[in-house]
């Protein structure tokens, strides 16, 4: 079943077309890779899909309970509420907050009570807070971060920060999760662990994952389908095997051994 349909998506910065005419579909519960040379427009594409940038042209539709919603013109937070979550290429945690609070903020829209209940501490407030903490701890446990719930996010090692960002995104209860270079800065061993983790959450949380990554061991291992971008255009699209065999992709991106 189609979850997201993107057509002719284009983003121009001055004279530069960072993304041009990209078509893309995303089905329920699949793992998709997005690769391409540096500056190909991958991050920009994510930014368009999550409302950080507004596209110059094209359409983005999200299928929800059988009805189609256009994401064009929606704010980032509205898109997030529709079930689209992401992580960032340069980690953007709430650095001075604890690990637990980072996740609880992700849970805010799901459980948070309104301003008045918070100001006046109604019984509902205490219930909601408890539930939120409980669920946050549960999520952290999945990623083996529960031990560090009280740490300030900025004091976590790099690898943990990347994982925490994923937990935080998952907390919003998304249907689609966009991960921008989750393995950057990790050593090969940590990358392998991450690969397993991505597979696991895709299953456990029933979601579709789109992943930008330059580490081919990760991409080829987890993705069912891969899109390749070059100069803002779609260069190729197919299974990992097809992509590996695609001469164009090898020329533009993978390089020969």
């Amino acid at each position, binding site marked *: 079943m189609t979850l997201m349909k993107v057509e002719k998506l284009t983003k121009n910065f001055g004279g530069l077309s960072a993304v041009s005419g990209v078509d893309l579909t995303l089905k329920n519960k699949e793992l998709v890779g997005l690769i391409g040379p540096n*500056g190909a427009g991958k991050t920009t594409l994510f930014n368009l899909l999550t409302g950080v940038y507004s596209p110059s042209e094209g359409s983005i539709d999200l299928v929800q309970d059988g009805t189609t919603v256009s994401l064009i013109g929606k704010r980032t937070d509205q898109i997030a509420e529709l079930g689209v979550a992401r992580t960032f290429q340069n980690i953007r945690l709430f650095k001075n907050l604890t690990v637990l609070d980072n996740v609880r903020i992700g849970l805010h829209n799901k459980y948070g009570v309104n301003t008045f209940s918070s100001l006046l501490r109604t019984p509902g407030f205490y219930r909601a807070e408890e539930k939120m903490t409980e669920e946050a701890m549960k999520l952290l446990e999945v990623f083996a971060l529960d031990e560090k719930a009280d740490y300030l996010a900025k004091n976590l090692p790099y690898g943990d920060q990347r994982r925490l960002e994923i937990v935080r995104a998952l907390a919003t209860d998304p249907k689609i999760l966009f991960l921008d*270079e989750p393995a950057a*800065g990790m*050593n*090969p*061993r940590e990358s392998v662990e991450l690969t397993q983790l991505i597979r696991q959450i895709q299953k456990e949380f029933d979601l579709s994952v789109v992943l930008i990554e*330059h580490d081919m061991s990760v991409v080829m291992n987890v993705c069912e389908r891969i899109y390749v971008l070059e100069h803002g255009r779609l260069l190729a699209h197919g299974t990992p095997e097809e992509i590996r065999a695609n001469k164009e992709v090898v020329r533009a991106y*993978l*390089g020969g051994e």
Partner: protein
Amino acid sequence: MLQVKNLTVHYGVIEAIKEVSFEVNEGEIVTLIGANGAGKTTILKTISGLVRPTAGEIVYQEDIIQKATPRAIVQKGLSHVPEGRHVFSGMSVMENLEMGAFLRRDKKAIRQDIKKVFDLFPILEERKDQDSATLSGGEQQMLAMGRALVSKPKLLLLDEPSMGLAPLFIEQIFRIIKKINEEGTTILLIEQNAAVALEIATKGYVLETGRIVESGAGKDLLQSEAVQRAYLGA
């Protein structure tokens, strides 16, 4: 060329580096590898004068430099490509490169060296008037490297230069590193990508929580079982 002797560095009360000693000889590529948080970046920052050590000595070309300012150290021909790129956002690509040549006076030669950087990274030439803040991650990495090269260093400190680069480009960047090394620049390299780094390194050191636990020729280390297990996840 560079000797680090019994270096100890503290962040507040935390001891990030503990009595580390190593040596880089002229013409070598030396690599430091280690897990996240092992202290690699801290060592580079201490060498270039951004962080002050609590104990130990750093000798660069006969000069003791652990008390010198970064400016003085740069003047001696040492250049540092920091972790996380740190391009001057708000300045164009070209201006960033010019900043790399801040201490140089030879205008003509600078222009030639910038040209050389553009040959190495053609995409930078295409983007030369673009605000460096809006470059893609990989482009910024190239810019940071190019900027260091313009200063014509004798010793180049590289902190994870391959981070965020496309595979094709990682190959290229290591080729470039090798090339500049062959052209006479000594290199101290930090890499997560231990396999590739050790491949080109003359020698390597393995760092674990602020201590050097193993060292040897690059190729030998690559074979070492400890390295294999701990960092390559084989």
